[in-house]
């Protein structure tokens, strides 16, 4: 790791102002990506501004038809949150599958979506649930937030403060974990909104990061059942391929994980 200056912000405003004063600052949440990258000397921020101890950024709240997860809430807290389990059990379940226990105790939803790893779990939930990303400047619809590999709509210095999820009628998540990293080799989140819209999002599959799967959405719109997906064909082109999964395998996983997510959603 190179020399850097560490700041522990006590408020979102303080974090933003520290950022503005630094030459090449990075925000630190759970540190599950930034710290390994810094240790490998692949990142050399002048300043590291820690958001994880800002009280206003931690917590899970349900209110009416909305579940709000504040950005610095660790995955473990979401996985074990009564509010989350009651409002959107599939989301709590997704959080329980992220990485391993050490990752879940540290990693946060804000850090995960701001990093937008193409195999991260949360982006699938945000996209399928039509969530809204709250920042210190604005609100961004999930479908506008994710912009491809490791790219988001966030502007320089903009801080994710919370994510709010409309409570769906039904939702389910199914994931084939990457055997080494435990990211999603492919994970699929399916949701049926209270207004009857069907949204399906896959992570770990596309070369462009998290994606909606319109063919499966159409099939489920007609018939919300695993069997409805049997006849859907997912093309392998444009899908990720690496030593742990060919593009064809991932195409298969999109379908199989979607079927299992639907089965889990009931």
């Amino acid at each position, binding site marked *: 790791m190179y020399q850097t200056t560490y700041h522990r912000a006590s408020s979102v405003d303080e974090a933003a102002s520290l950022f503005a004063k630094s030459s090449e600052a990075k925000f630190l949440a759970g540190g599950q990506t930034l710290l390994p990258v810094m240790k490998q000397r692949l990142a050399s921020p002048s300043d590291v501004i820690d958001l994880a101890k800002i009280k206003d950024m931690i917590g899970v709240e349900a209110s009416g038809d909305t579940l709000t997860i504040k950005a610095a809430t660790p995955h473990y807290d979401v996985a074990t949150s009564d509010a989350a389990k009651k409002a959107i059990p599939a989301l709590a379940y997704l959080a329980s599958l992220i990485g391993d226990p050490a990752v879940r105790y540290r990693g946060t939803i804000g850090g995960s979506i701001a990093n937008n790893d193409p195999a991260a779990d949360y982006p699938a939930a945000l996209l399928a649930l039509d969530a809204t990303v709250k920042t210190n400047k604005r609100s961004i619809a999930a479908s506008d937030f994710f912009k491809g590999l490791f790219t988001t709509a966030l502007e320089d210095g903009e801080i994710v403060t919370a994510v709010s999820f409309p409570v769906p009628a039904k939702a389910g998540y199914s994931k*084939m974990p990457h*055997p*080494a990293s435990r990211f999603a080799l492919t994970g699929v989140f399916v949701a049926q909104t209270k207004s009857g819209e069907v949204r399906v999002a896959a992570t770990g599959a596309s070369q462009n990061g998290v994606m909606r799967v319109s063919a499966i959405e159409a099939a489920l719109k007609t018939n919300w059942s695993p069997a409805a997906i049997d006849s859907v064909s997912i093309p392998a082109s444009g899908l990720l391929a690496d030593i*742990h999964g060919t593009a064809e395998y991932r195409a298969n996983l999109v379908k*199989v994980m979607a079927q299992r997510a639907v089965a889990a959603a009931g």
Partner: protein
Amino acid sequence: MGVEGIGARVVRKEDKRFITGKGRYVDDIKLTGMTHAYFIRSPHAHAKVKGIDSSAALKMPGVVAVLTGKQLVDDKVGNLICGWAITSKDGSPMKMGAWPAMAPETVRFVGQAVAVVIAESKNLARDAAEAVVVDYEELPAVADMQAAIKAGAPQLHPEAPGNQVYDWVIGDEGATDAAFSKAANVVKLDVTNNRLAPNAMEPRAAIADYDAAEEHFTLYTTSQNPHVARLVLSAFYNIAPEHKLRVIAPDVGGGFGSKIFIYPEEMVALWASKKVGRPVKWTGDRTEAFLTDAHGRDHVTHAEMAFDTSNKIIGLKVKTYANFGAYMSLFSSSVPTYLYATLLSGQYNIPAIHAEVIGVYTNTTPVDAYRGAGRPEASYLIERLMETAARQLNVDPAELRRTNFITQFPHQTPVIMAYDTGDFNASLDAAMKAIDYAGFAARKAQAKSQGKLRGIGVSCYIEACGIAPSKAVGSLGAGVGLWESAEVRVNPVGTIEILTGSHSHGQGHETTFCQLVADRLGVPISQVSIVHGDTDKVQFGMGTYGSRSAAVGLTAILKAMEKMESKAKKIAAHALEASEADIVIENGEFKVTGTDKAIALPMVALAAYTAHNLPDGMEPGLKESAFYDPTNFTFPAGAYICELEVDPGTGKTSFINFVAADDFGRLINPMIVEGQVHGGLAQGIGQALLEHAIYDANGQPVTASFMDYAMPRADDLPSFNLSHTTTLCPGNPLGIKGCGEAGAIGASAAVINAITDAIGKNNLEMPATPDRVWRTIHAA
């Protein structure tokens, strides 16, 4: 006997310090004036080093020196050696290129060091390393073994044309051909034994401390065999004569073979310490471990097995290509030859065997012994062949094995080994009973009704351990003897120190070795301490590998104990005015049998050291040593059966049951033995399902971190169902066979046999990742 004697499940003495963070590993050691080394490593798989400009780095804060491969050669530091000479079938010696500890001219794998920065801290050294400019001229590289042996392939070493190290044969080719000509059935199989990265929990580390006044070096290092390290460093590398070099291997966090070898880093640290006049510390990180710790396995094999009309094996032909990486590591040459092909008879009567092994250089990390070393490759091949044969011959796989089991001992195989004892039917019986083999068909049908593909796989392994008789290994090309030594010191107050040439890096010697003493003397193990891992304390030893520490190392302790007890009995008899023949040792006392006369061990010890009243002519003191050289290898064997389900939608494997019935001879501490089996099985299953060290076509490692290299985790593994069937090893007085490698040797074939049974397709390479299994299921 007693609660802490042989056979007792004694809790490990050493664990208190390990689990409370009080272990003392190399990186925990800090010496006054210590500097830190950071190696500059090649990013290319093959390149000329045209120049190294360290001028900017030398001006940076805290930099003490930047040393290069050229300086190392100029100082006449020796090249790394390979300690086992193999002769090709044409009579020529193996062909090896030179391996300097830092490359002066040519780098041949990604991660090979070209220079080292010595600085006041590791971070400063790393900062300066980034300022060192190395001018590389890239050369064509070859990482794939089959590509490396083709005409026109990039050549690694001028000494080894065609990238071939040797072409070695074993067995009787004529007799084998004759057997095949009479065969009723021939079973053919191509298998790849995947390359593995060892990944001990503690990365390698070294601290070298040169004392200019004494012209003496001390090396703290992560070694499984510190005396062998000193021998090699002294005899071959011109570092220092043995009496001027102390090697200390303190607590070492796992080795699995990867810490047997002498690596460039400790040689460079020693040399650099003298050059800069200060202690030099190097601690590798995980990336360096992936790039530079010797890898394991990496074979490609074609095999054919001939059967007669009654399904008896009549012949076996094997041709194996073994990847050695870019250089020949210390024992690498022996692994695919004498540690592999000599086990190709497995548990079976095979009258004729012929095997050919071709060793190949590639632009990859050197390959050497890794848990099992050659024997997992042999066992995997034979047990995959047996399964394939059972399917082809349409007989039950367990039954086919029984038809061919060796049942008479001793048994001379056609490939050197003379099995001393065993009961292969007993271990297979135990495993089949434990897994309810008879009920499998019903369970498979039940699983099928739930959309799951269930399979069962048998693996009956044998290994040659307790490595072993010096005369035998010497005749096969080993550069060292493989005996072990021990010393028993009874202190004047009756406490006991055992000095051993074995080295514990996770095996629990500090407990098991004490149990032998407790067993013989009836003293609590708290009265006994084990001293190991320091060439200044222990006179000599060959270290720990090849499941040898109990069979060889503990027997050496037994021999020293017997000498010590004999003297102590004389002292006791003299004190008790009894005949030496009437003295028995019980509960820490020397008793006159049949009487109530006794003298406690501390009083005997005190008498030995005060020497006020010893038998006439007896030397004072109570300390004895012994060297023990066994007459044969030991032959642990067993049967593993795995039952699992494959999810046809994802190709994912889920274990239902995994049973292991091992014959390790006598068990000293069954709990520690179970731990050894658990760890070995985890590594065997890891190889079968998860682990694979991969290079791209240009020799760039693809799996150089845990984000890509899949190490098995607890939730990847089943709960193991272990049992033991016992035939005592006749080759050593304790009847021990060794248990350290069995799991890694036997597990892989059981898993792959079970998956291929489940999916109904025989050809499936390791690691059987979900992707690979799914594609195999759906392949045309």
